[in-house]
């Protein structure tokens, strides 16, 4: 019995959470890995849930058109399976 990553809880839940978020920020020479960064929120326990809540809130505002969103469509996310090429 193997759990398929595509059927695991995290990507499904978080695909809703994290799509549509785009802001500028500082960059390091090392690629932290988008998925690894998302995981760090989950590893944060209750404090992490607060962050998830805020991300939800942001997403809600975007959906209600209270806040604008300049992010690319979700399709572009699905096209590349591996983000290691830029390391």
């Amino acid at each position: 019995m193997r759990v398929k990553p595509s059927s695991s809880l995290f990507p499904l839940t978080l695909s809703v959470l994290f799509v549509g978020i785009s802001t500028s920020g500082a960059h390091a020479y090392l690629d932290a890995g988008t998925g690894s960064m998302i995981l760090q929120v989950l590893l944060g326990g209750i404090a992490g849930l607060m962050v998830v809540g805020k991300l939800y809130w942001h997403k809600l505002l975007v959906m209600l058109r209270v806040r604008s969103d300049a992010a690319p469509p979700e399709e572009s996310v699905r096209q590349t399976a591996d983000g290691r090429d830029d390391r």
Partner: protein
Amino acid sequence: MSGIGGVEAEEAATTASVQFPSPSSGAIDKEPGSYRDRNGAVFYREGRVFRFLSKEAAANWRQLERTAFFATLREEGRIVETREVDAAAEGLPQSEWAATLEHARIPFVSYPYEWCFGMLKSAALFHLELMQRALAEGMILKDSSSYNVQWRGVRPVFIDVPSFEPLKRGAPWVGYRQFCELLLYPLMLEAYKGVDFRPWLRGRIDGIPAEEMRGLMSARDMLRPGVLLHVVAQSALQRRYGGSGRDMRGALAEAGFDKGLIERNVKKLTALVSKLEPARQRTVWSDYERSHSYDEAEFGKKMEFVRAAAATRRWRLAWDLGCNTGTFSRIAAEHADYVVAMDGDRMAIEHLYRRESEKAAFDRILPLVVDLADASPNQGWRLAERKGLAERGRPDLTLCLALVHHIVISANIPLADFIGWLAELGTSLVIEFVGREDEMVKVLLANREDQYPDYQPENFRRLLSAHFDIRSEEELKGGKRRIFFAEAKGRG
């Protein structure tokens, strides 16, 4: 990562690095492994290790210098001794760089694919401790490369000082993924699967990716500590979001990601790594000290011979090849500044590492897992990022005890070739010839065709004499073995 070369880094540099003229005396040799982070550059001059810093890195360094944890760890020798130097006074071409640091030398550079489990585990825990202490003072490690840890004996030393930077508000732990790939997954591989992590680390300079690690985990492994989150979830999330091109760091900062989350992760990882132990504790040789083929008197005779040879002078660097659990490495260490103890058997090295770690003076013997017939090569970018064994420092004394039969018979390396290689090292030698009547040789020959006509005592002596001056020799085990002390021709 930026490496800090070993005792003979200048030698390595002649083949492995770019040289450019210096305005003052002595050429500058750039460390070929120091290129990833553009905020600094390591180089060597006349046996000293320097590092240029960018404006940003210089500001980080000045902040780091004021922290209490850095002062303490530097004092304890756990972070490499580092000081800022005046480039102009040193005659260094600092040009566009903002500052220059000088680091103390590491006696012999080693790589994670040569460490035993305990060493990799120590390096992981040390890294987490540095994270935790840095976070407490508003700083963080910008990367989590296992190559940033080196050793003084069995004592880990952190060498990449500019890795410390101020933690920006809302920033995640950028090095977390690297920590998993280079430290956590290799440890899990050996602890959960009983698989030697070294070939994986040697095979890929960036370690084991989450997706690959995920593929190695069985359904049962999913239940083991840390697997579901650090392996399965990370692999799934990386696959789903890895190529999204989104600025997740910015998004997290805006959503209120903070230091507390990193601290929690670091704390949990510390608990997880602390509990990891190698799955297979015993291999053929790890109990050698109790099962070797010598009786006590003969073993004492052999020890005395080695001790007398080692005592003939003070050695800078000794290698103990096929060191097993280090009995003779300890004798060599009485007369050498530094001993690199190598054996192909990982549990023998584990045993040596643990025993040395229990001692008060534990900074003179570096245990490494090295199979001489398949030793670490030059590899990485331009085949110069990680260096082969001899490029990192040639020994002036080498012990080859109960080794030659394994080299010639088990590894099929011609005797002349092996002696020739030792001669190229330019080292003095304590070497034991194990004769055909010896039961250990009989075991090796029991199930293989005897294609070793060169494996004869007369031939051994002839080859040895061709390259070395034999200073002393002695019969052991009633003539089944013979031990020699020989020096490179033209020496002494």
